[in-house]
């Protein structure tokens, strides 16, 4: 009976793509290159041109970094660039803050996302960069150790939270609330650690530390102002909506540089106080105007049925806003908000131009003002650029992940 070969169960025909996958890697690579790089005469030409340009750039960068550049301008001015006028005997406060933030990053990733291969690679590369910087010259061996402990805390926090169950339940809720609470408390905690109880005076915040303080204050403060501003602008009460609209249009109508001048000269007479506080106020007020517009856009994008359903189950106007509308609007506005956050992060450099506040770029200027390092301007600025890029990149990665994990239940 069983004489038809087609029914032989032993014979398994591989689907074509599986068969292809079995061929040696070099053959597959060659085929991929032919398809994607050399598929036509024009394609081949473009590939060669691009490869040549890339090779030139890479050669130039490698030559600059490893041969041409004199990185002593950085290693000799490490403290100046990073902490500037921060009292050196209070260094532990800086490291404590770094460790706290790293731990928090680990906890956050473990709770809402997971570290992928690219994240690990980035951490390794960024750490290599940091250690190269910290360990060079040997004087700062302790800094390297502190830094490694911070990275260790990141992974420890991650390892603990990633193992906790993700299914909804009281434990999960508690975990989410604790980490969220820590995130909210993070900025005040860091500020207290840096400044209070015998820490530095505000004016002693300098260098990279100053950027790292100014930007979060601007972003968090901006968000806090932006939410009522957006609601006010959308309000049906004319006086309120008109006031909020005026605020937004006026603030967005002038460059940040201009507002920093206002902080320097006009606010001095009005509110006085520490320059750094005035700079913080200006950054927050400036950021808020943009964020309010993103939130307003999100509010408009939200289907009207959401607030109707909220009212239909009996929630009042405030509850509907707090529990239904705002959480969704804030989530929709995460991408533009992160764009704004990255932008304000880079704009903290403007502070140096206007105010006698010395942030990273300002202290890089001081570094190359030393006679010995004047020829090393490019090195100093390249370094500043890389540091800014690293932080901006971290912000954008984290936000992508947050967005992805908040996306559960997205329509």
């Amino acid at each position: 009976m069983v004489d038809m070969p087609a029914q032989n169960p032993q014979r398994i025909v591989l689907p074509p793509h599986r068969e292809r996958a079995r061929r040696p890697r070099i053959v597959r690579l060659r085929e991929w290159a032919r398809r994607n790089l050399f598929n036509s005469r024009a394609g081949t030409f473009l590939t060669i041109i691009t490869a040549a340009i890339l090779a030139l750039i890479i050669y130039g960068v490698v030559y600059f970094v490893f041969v041409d550049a004199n990185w002593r301008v950085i290693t000799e001015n490490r403290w100046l660039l990073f902490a500037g006028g921060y009292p050196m005997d209070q260094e532990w406060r800086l490291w404590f803050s770094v460790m706290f933030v790293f731990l928090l990053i680990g906890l956050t990733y473990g709770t809402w996302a997971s570290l992928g291969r690219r994240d690990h690679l980035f951490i390794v590369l960024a750490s290599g960069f940091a250690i190269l910087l910290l360990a060079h010259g040997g004087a700062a061996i302790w800094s390297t150790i502190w830094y490694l402990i911070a990275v260790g805390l990141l992974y420890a926090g991650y390892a603990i939270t990633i193992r906790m169950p993700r299914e909804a339940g009281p434990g999960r809720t508690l975990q989410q609330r604790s980490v969220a609470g820590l995130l909210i408390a993070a900025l005040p905690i860091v500020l207290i650690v840096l400044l209070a109880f015998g820490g530095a005076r505000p004016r002693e915040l300098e260098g990279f530390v100053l950027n790292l303080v100014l930007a979060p204050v601007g972003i968090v403060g901006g968000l806090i102002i932006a939410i009522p501003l957006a609601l006010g602008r959308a309000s049906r009460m004319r006086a309120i909506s008109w006031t909020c609209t005026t605020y937004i249009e006026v603030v967005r109508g002038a460059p940040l540089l201009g507002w920093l001048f206002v902080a320097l000269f006009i606010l001095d007479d009005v509110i006085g106080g520490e320059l750094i506080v005035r700079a913080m106020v200006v950054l927050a007020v400036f950021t808020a105007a943009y964020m309010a517009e993103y939130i307003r856009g999100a509010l408009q994008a939200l289907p009207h049925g959401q607030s109707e359903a909220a009212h239909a189950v009996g929630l009042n106007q405030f509850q509907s806003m707090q529990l239904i509308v705002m959480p969704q609007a804030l989530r929709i506005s995460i991408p533009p908000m992160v764009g704004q956050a990255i932008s304000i992060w880079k704009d903290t450099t403007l502070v140096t131009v206007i105010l006698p506040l010395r942030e990273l770029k300002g202290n890089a200027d001081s570094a190359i003002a030393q006679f010995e390092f004047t020829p090393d301007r490019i090195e100093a600025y390249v370094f500043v650029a890389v540091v800014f890029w690293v932080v901006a990149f971290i912000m954008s990665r984290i936000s992508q992940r947050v967005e992805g994990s908040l996306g559960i239940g997205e329509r």
Partner: protein
Amino acid sequence: MTTETEATPTRDLESMEDIIIAENVDKWFGDFQALDNISMRIKEHEIVVVLGPSGSGKSTFIRCLNRLEEHDAGRIVIDGIEMNDDVRNLNAIRSEVGMVFQQFNLFPHLSVMNNITLGPRKVRRMPKLDADALAMQLLERVGIPEQAEKYPAQLSGGQQQRVAIARALAMQPKIMLFDEPTSALDPEMIKEVLDVMQELARSGMTMIVVTHEMGFAREVADRLIFFDEGSLVEEGTPQHFFENPQEDRTKLFLSQIL
């Protein structure tokens, strides 16, 4: 005149109180009159199906009954509470009137469980454990207890609409409004939602249903109401409607839809 057919459960609606009273209700959208002098009374436990072509004002009318739309003239009284600008009245009415929407309008950022418990917990101040127990009970009733921890987007349309019904029931309303509850569903999911509604009708809920499901109207409704161009054109029992409609507009509509 009100001869009960076999399909309609024998109930003594005559002796019931009027739970919804609408008198001379007008509603304008700018220059467009959406409701023109609508008056009706609905008794407790009554099942009313509202029919009409799109734009006839039927949705607007039931949205006026929990003030998702504000009526411009006339009077609406729900269970003895006057619908007016008094916020306390409005809150009282809204917690007595549940609503199910065409587009479900579940809260996408909350789990099914939290969608259902939100109202009881925030409005009725019910403790979380009680609210959770109530929600599970309601999910059993609509037939999807296993979906409690999922998010709305992970459910089919029919399941979402059943969650929406459970959410409305969680406030323990006296009246349920259904605004085309099956119009956004794929055909194979319509029945599961209608079954839940039918069960609800048998349990004695007062229901006002805007729908195009004629089978449901014929089987479940005590009374049918036909709207056209903002006016109440004709009303009567299912039997009256399907066997002996009086108005030309009703006849035309029924001939198009049946």
